[in-house]
């Protein structure tokens, strides 16, 4: 079973924490620091799920998600958005661009793990 999780976030601490908890929970973690790298890795590595922070350089999380959904190779990979606020508008935007779920920061590491598990179970 594919247990690769692509983590797209420009913040070093967030990547380190999420990588540790996800690996601890038996996932394999790929990291990207900006939107462009995220899209490239998704295409090359075919992860089971993408954790996409929305405020990232070069290509922001929303556009990167759109790019993934527009490409036949990556369109079926579920994307979980990581947003700065839990506003209804953020939720709506996440659905609009094609995300399957969204988590508002700050998010507890264990919550990330359970969300990833839930999404994969549904898939």
């Amino acid at each position, binding site marked *: 079973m594919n247990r690769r999780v692509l983590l797209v976030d420009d913040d070093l*601490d967030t990547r380190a*924490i999420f990588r*540790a908890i996800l690996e601890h929970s038996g996932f394999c973690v790929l990291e990207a620091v900006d939107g462009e790298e995220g899209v490239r890795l998704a295409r090359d590595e075919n992860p089971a799920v993408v954790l996409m922070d929305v405020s990232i350089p070069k290509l922001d999380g929303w556009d990167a998600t759109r790019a993934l959904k527009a490409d036949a190779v990556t369109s079926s990979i579920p994307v979980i958005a990581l947003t700065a606020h839990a506003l209804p508008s953020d939720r709506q935007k996440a659905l609009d661009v094609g995300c399957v779920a969204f988590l508002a920061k700050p998010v507890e*590491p*264990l919550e990330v793990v359970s969300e990833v598990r839930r999404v994969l179970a549904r898939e």
Partner: protein
Amino acid sequence: VRQFRETDEPPAEHPPIPFVAIAASPPDVRAFVAELPSSVALLEGPEHLVTAASSGYRSLIGGDDPCGRRFAEVHPAIAQDGVPALLTRLYLTGEPISGTRPIESLGGGTLPHRRFFDYVYQPIQAPGGRVWGIIAQFHDATDRVRAELEREFLGMVTDVLASSIDYEATLTAVTELAVQGTADWCAIDELDDEGTIRRISVAHPDPKMVRLAHELMERYPVDANAPHGAARVIRTGELEFVREIPDELIIKATRDEEHLRIVRALGLTSYISVPLIARDRVLGALTLVTSGPAKRFDDRDLRVAGEIARRAAVAIDNARLHRESEQARGRLEEQAIQLEVQAEELLATQAELELSNDELQHANAELEERIAESERAVAVANAASDRLVLLAEAGALLGSQLDYQATLNELAQLVVPRIADWCFVEMVDDDGSVELVALHHEDPGRTALAREAVGRYPVDRSAPHGSAAVLRTGEPELVPEVPDTLLEAVAQDSRHLAILRDVGFRSYLSVPLQVRGRIVGVLSLVAGESGRRLGEADLSLAQELGRRAALAIDNAWLYAAENEARHVAESASDRSRRLQEIASALNQATTPSEVADVCVFHGIEALQADAGSLALLSDDRTAFEIVSTSGFADEVADRWRSFPLVPGKPVSDAVILRTPVILGTRADWNARYPHVLPDVEAAGTIGFATIPLVVATEVVAGLSFGFSGEKVFEDADRRFLTTLGEQAAQALERARLFEAESQARTEAELANRAKTDFLSAMSHELRTPLNAIAGYIDLLEAGVRGPLSAQQLSDLSRIKRAQTILLDLINDILSFARIEAGRIEFGRERIDVRELLAGLDEVMGPLLAAKGLRYSGDAGSEPLFVSGDPERIRQVLINLLSNAVKFTDQGGSIAVSAAAGTDNVVICVEDTGKGIPVEKLDSIFDPFVQVGRGYVSEGQQGVGLGLAISRELARGMGGDLTVESVLGEGSRFILALPNADEASDNE
């Protein structure tokens, strides 16, 4: 006259003091007002409490200290006129209110009768335009108002008397005018040909009183020998003026007990009785009476009465002459008819006696003599009748017109050729020279010739004969036969003599025209080619005409003086109105440039100037910059847009010398600024005035006006300029302060926004690493890095708690910054208080249970609904409850209750905690204020912003948050919110 008293015309002489309130706080204004010498009071608040009173105002109203009392209480009469409502309206309009009123309405008890004051109610505005008080100013306007009333009144009297020859009707009208203006009663009594006194007219504002007066007159006719009153005035020709009628006078003047009782009941206070005199004959008397306490005539009233009497006498005399001439003509015609009948009878007798020659001849001679005699009698009678007709016509003519030059010309036409071949009138000018004002001869050619002669040979004031002598002596001159030697003596050269001989001076007479004892001209009649000879009868007729002509001249002069006074008063009131307008326009102006525009625009209008400009002096006081200009040619305006301050130029000099520079004529320029005159000539703007605008003690600007051609600056212009300058300077200063203040405010707002943005950015920056800390703690706690000891876990939980506190604090700072910056929008919903409180139980339940606190929620028996944002209200209540939990020790209790307030709903959160010290009650809502180290134990930190945010949220929804507390017993936080049902009522 009554209307005038009520009018709200602006006072002519006292433009309001424009109060500049921006820099002055209420205590400063109060102190300022109290120091003023004039009558000024400061009114504040909805009740218009007198909060300061000048010494002038205190003495004006007399009595107790007005301070602290309502204005309406100090002046009950004013209150009845609705003035408090006007004052209240002034708070909304900000427009000053002014006018004139009789002084009785001020309520001063000790002031004499018939005084007036001007009032101005001026709003005082705070910088934002909010009116916070009213300056009430009062000026004694008695002299001006009474002069205006008298002038107007005498004007009406003159008009009425000139309008009709039916003198009884016109005198009735005069008495009715008098009781509107000066007196309660007015009567005119006439001495008729039989020597009895007849009351022509009596007036009182109340018709019932007039009927009473007529009844009294019938029962008690005037006793011609009475020792007082009209009868004595008519007998002696001397006026009577009794300021205060003593009771003994009434006793003496009445006939019996009944009469005395009635007259006493009338309550007469004061009277004036003046004789009506025309042609040195007393025709009657005019009597004015006041009734009621404190209404006494004064010397002004006496003068007015004299003026009415003079005019009434002329009216009576004219009317009588007219009547007499009509009667005389009738009598003489009858006499002539009788003489003709007699002549016919005699002729018949002559025929009968034809036979007796001697007798016949004798009879014939006698008859012829009788016929001649009768013919002479008819001629004399006709001449006398002609004279009376002429006098009546002249009287009517002279009484009816106010352009005396035209009237005198018409008079000359009336006289020629009836009694003379020539008639001319000369008058003395103000400068003493003699001017021909009227001249008439039947032949226009000869009139022109005579005019030419007079023009070429001015009257020699030292001549022994003719008009010069009459002017000098005041005595009439009659020369029935003019000898050639007299012409030679009068002629100034041979050509003059030739003209005089050609005119044919055979016979002449000259009479003086005398106005109130002063000889102002000469009326001359000349007989020439008709061969007529002027005699004593012609002289007396001419004297009569002269008296009437003099009266006409006097009337015309008085009328002109009245017109002039009216004009001056009107232009003063016009100016004052303009100043009022300017003050109001200046109130609206908020920038120096707007102030300048108002001054230039209104100044040009009021002065009828052709151009104007306002030049501001630079801060270093070396140059001017023109901020507003109008009427100057573009190239002139451009050239002078800025110019240096140098002595020897009008605008600079006005500023340097701190005095207006006013240049009306080329001569004025030549005297002070000859070097500038060519420029001035080129621009065509000769008349020029600059006034310095002085703020505090510094000149800040020059306001200039230019006039096409030369300009006469009258006193009124100068006064207007000065006042405009004062108003402009104050408005300019106010505008500067206003600008400085709004700049400071903008800067403060910008600084505040920058602070908010900074805080907001800082919070974000702080939160990121804090979130990382939390994440790493979570990792460790989850055992990701391997198993931890109990001590390590305990340390981690302490790190976690510190991290939480710090994060909460940062979140609070961010919320507070957002609220302060107005970046939070509040929903507005109708919220059921019951549901709101029930929702709290859910959240708070575990917390309360954990600490072992008792809790009760009471939403009241009646359904309550508040208006607001449900999430924000919950946030506030949870904050209050969290605090209550934090600060209440185990075993205590917390209660939430709701109730309807007067126009809102209050929700109370009460605890039995440690309470808040009194000195902290005010400051606990301030950001970052902790109740005190001693009161806060571990676990109770992090409340620095909670209450500040809660109060801001409550206020943001139109409510408030307050606190009551007893130290050691507990606290009660009271959240007030708009009642949703009340709020919807208002919408």
